[in-house]
């Protein structure tokens, strides 16, 4: 199933792109997705980030729905 992966702030510098489309297995947990992410971008191992699925920060054992937007968010620094 298709998902959109978006990168922000410092993470965007590691991945060198702001958005891409992935084809992933159904019933994939957020935690398992995280492993794929590090496989593709090993440098992310050294970074702090959270994953927001459809704009929500969910538990790592939740599964990702089809057509989801997965945002890779570095630490916030607004204000």
């Amino acid at each position, binding site marked *: 199933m298709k998902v959109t992966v978006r990168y*922000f702030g410092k993470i965007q510098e590691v991945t060198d792109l702001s958005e891409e489309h992935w084809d992933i297995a159904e019933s994939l947990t957020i935690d398992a997705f995280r492993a794929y992410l590090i496989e593709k971008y090993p440098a992310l191992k050294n970074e702090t980030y959270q994953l927001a699925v459809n*704009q929500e920060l969910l538990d790592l054992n939740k599964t990702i729905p089809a057509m989801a937007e997965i*945002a890779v*968010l570095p*630490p*916030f620094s*607004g*204000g």
Partner: protein
Amino acid sequence: MTDKKKKPKRVFVEGPISPEKIATSIAHHQVKTNIGAHDIFLGQVRADEIDGKTVQAIEYSAHEEMAENLFHEIRESAFEKYDLTCMHIYHSLGKVNTGEICLFVFTSSKHRQMAMDACRYLVEEIKAKVPVFGKELFEDNSHQWKVNT
């Protein structure tokens, strides 16, 4: 007059927030004669020195849709927790030079306690929960990513 019922207003503005914008916002509240107290928080970009280099500006980016939704949720939760007449939040996107204002939080209430408590709540919530990212730019074109403390 009933800000509570309005549709979500856009919080993000392009570039710095001017003192004139703040004055205009204050002036708009002078017709609301049930207000007794306003509290205003302003975030200003500091010329921090880091490893011998001085910050010239911060360039803000965000997950905009997610951030606007979170600003809206934070606003709603503040209206539930505190007895407020009005509440306004503005946050910069793009480049804001040192000395310029990047965050403007404005709460108004009948009494001072509510206005001050709500303003503090909003600032803390915004800093902790909203996906905004600040890139500190140095004079030699290098940069570092800011992390909120």
